[in-house]
C-alpha cells in the first residue's frame, strides 16, 4: 500500500463482506422490534401516569386544596419532562437521512443545541417545581400515612431525586460533549 491507487484497489477487494439471508431477515426483524419498542414506551408512559393519578386518589389529596395543587404540580412536571423527552426522541428519529452530509450535520447540530437548552433551562425549572411540590406535601404525608410509609416516602423521595439529578447531569454532560465535537469541525 504505497500509493493511493494501490490502497484503493486493496480497499475495493476486501473479502468476506457479502450480505447474507440471515442479515437481511435481521433487518426486517429489527424494524418490527423498533415499532414494538415505541408501543411499549407508550404503554409504560400510560401506566406511569395511571399510577401517579392512582396515588393521588389513594392519599385523598383532592380533599385539600394545597395538597391537590402540590401533588398536581409534581404530576404535571413529571408529565412535562416525559413529553419533552419523547418529543426530543422523535426529533432525533425525524432527522432526514436523505440530506447531504453537510446539511445533515447542521440538523444534528441544531438538535444537540436544543437538547442543551433543555438541560440548562427546562430541566432545572422542572426539578425545582418537583421539589417544591414534594416539600409542600410532606406535612400531609406525615399526617395521613403510617410512620413506616412516611419514612419510606422521605427516603425514596431523596433517593429518586439524587438519582434523577445524577442521570440528567450525566446525560447533559454527554450531549454537551457531542455538541462540542460537532462544533469543533
Amino acid at each position, binding site marked *: 500500500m504505497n500509493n493511493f491507487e494501490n490502497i*484503493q484497489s486493496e480497499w475495493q477487494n476486501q473479502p468476506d463482506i457479502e450480505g447474507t439471508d440471515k442479515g437481511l431477515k435481521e433487518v426486517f426483524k429489527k424494524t418490527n422490534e423498533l415499532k414494538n419498542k415505541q408501543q411499549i414506551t407508550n404503554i409504560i408512559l400510560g401506566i406511569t401516569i395511571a399510577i401517579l393519578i392512582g396515588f393521588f386518589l389513594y392519599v385523598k389529596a383532592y380533599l385539600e386544596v394545597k395538597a391537590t395543587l402540590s401533588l398536581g404540580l409534581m404530576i404535571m412536571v413529571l408529565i412535562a419532562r416525559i413529553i419533552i423527552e419523547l418529543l426530543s426522541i422523535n426529533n432525533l428519529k425525524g432527522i432526514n437521512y436523505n440530506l*447531504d452530509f453537510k446539511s445533515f450535520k447542521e440538523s444534528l447540530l441544531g438538535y444537540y443545541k436544543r437538547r442543551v437548552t433543555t438541560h440548562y433551562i427546562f430541566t432545572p425549572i422542572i426539578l425545582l417545581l418537583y421539589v417544591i411540590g414534594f416539600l409542600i406535601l410532606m406535612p400531609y404525608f406525615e399526617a395521613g400515612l403510617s410512620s413506616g410509609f412516611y419514612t419510606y416516602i422521605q427516603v425514596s423521595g431523596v433517593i429518586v431525586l439524587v438519582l434523577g439529578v445524577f442521570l440528567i447531569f450525566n446525560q447533559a454532560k454527554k450531549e454537551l460533549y457531542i455538541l462540542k465535537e460537532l462544533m469543533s469541525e
Partner: protein
Amino acid sequence: MNQENFNIIYSENYPKVMRLCLGYVNGNKVQAQDLAQDVFIKVWDNLKNFRKESSISTWIYRITVNTCLIYLRTNKKRKTTNNLPPDLKIHIDNDVENRESKFKQLYNCINKLNDDNKAIILLELEGLPQKEIAEIIGINYETLRVRICRIKDKLTKCVSNE
C-alpha cells in the same frame, strides 16, 4: 417497494455499506455489521422518500455516511478494536496476517481524519465519481477536488508510515 426488490438492493449494496462502516469503526467487524444493519433499516424506512434524482447506490452512500456520523458522535467512548482472540490468531497464515496488519494501519489513518474528510476519503476509496461525492457531502465540485488531493496525499503518507 416490495421485499423482493429490497432483497436485490440489499445484496448489491451490502459490501459497499459494510466497507464504509468498517472504515468508521476501525475495522471492527461486529460493530460494522450492526452499523450496516442500521443503515439498511433506514434504507427500508426511507425508500418511499427516494426521489430517483441520483442512483440508488449514491442515495444509500448518503444514508450510510449520515448514519455513521451519528454513530461516531454518540459512541465516541466505545472502545474500537479489530484484534482477534489469541486462539484464532494462531490459525491465520502470514499472508492474511500481513493483510490484516496493513488494513489496521489504514483504518487507524482513516480515523485520524475529521468527520468531513473521513466521509470524503471513504467515498473516494469506493471509487465513486467525484461529482457524486460532492453531491453526497454537500460541497461544490471544485472545492472537493482540491480537498481530495490533500486527503489522498495525507492518507498515503500515513499508511506508508512516512
